[in-house]
């Protein structure tokens, strides 16, 4: 590839609604996504599930987003199912986006 002509694609922002508010998330690395999927599949305790979701999703959250979500979680405005849903929606969007990139790249 000619480095002079290579351009870096802008980061993709995924807008994920969480009980009335929409937050920005970045793409999660495939490796970290796979690790979190495996941990959720292992059905550990709710404490470990929460820890896994929070530590991984915090890396994908936009500026200040994770602080807001954590505050809502502490205030019990959202629960662990809502946080799990963020991950589910994010991975679905990421898969859809990857598929679209693959399709456009093949053309």
């Amino acid at each position, binding site marked *: 590839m000619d480095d002079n002509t290579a351009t870096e694609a802008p980061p993709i922002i995924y807008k994920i609604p969480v009980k009335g508010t929409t937050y920005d998330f970045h793409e999660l690395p495939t490796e970290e996504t796979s*690790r979190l999927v495996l941990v959720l599949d*292992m*059905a*550990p305790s709710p404490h470990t599930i929460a820890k896994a979701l929070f530590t991984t999703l915090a890396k994908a959250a936009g500026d200040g987003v994770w602080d807001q979500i954590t505050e809502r979680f502490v205030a019990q405005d959202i629960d662990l199912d809502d946080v799990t849903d963020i991950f589910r929606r994010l991975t679905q969007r990421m898969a859809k986006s990857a598929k679209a990139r693959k399709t456009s790249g093949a053309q």
Partner: protein
Amino acid sequence: MPSDVALLARSPLYIRVCGRDYVLPWRPVTDWVVAVDRLGSLAARLATPEDRERMSEDILTTPGAVEQVQQESKRILAEATGLKWFEAARLLAASLDTETMGRLMLAGLDPERMSVGQWCAATYALYLKGHNQEERTKIQFMLMLPPAGEEDAWDDGPTPDDAMAAVAALNGK
């Protein structure tokens, strides 16, 4: 086909994930059916609840952990059945077919008491029952055909003569 020792074993299995050793207690075949559609997490799911907690924390922070669990899952499935992992996974999947499961139940088998090795052997015997040698060879060949990406499994499998005989049988010769 399955080794007799593996079929009768009730001993625990040992896995190593993220640099830590774990002992998986013996479990009946009902706990192994996850191998049919979620083979990649089998080894982790067979761990005790306490070990799953520790393993989860390690997996989250260890690059390559997912591949390690996948490899250990395949290894223990092979070890517990005396088969190649994909042969065991195919037999487990086949046993979940309604008619096959019905026949296994009518034969008096209790999946809560049987090992995964015994269950696979029973399913294997059921599929071979009533077939002539040529048909048996076809079934055996379909069972031992490695999936995509696992072609190296041929290396410790049938000899070239076995494979040629199986291909001839598939062609009806």
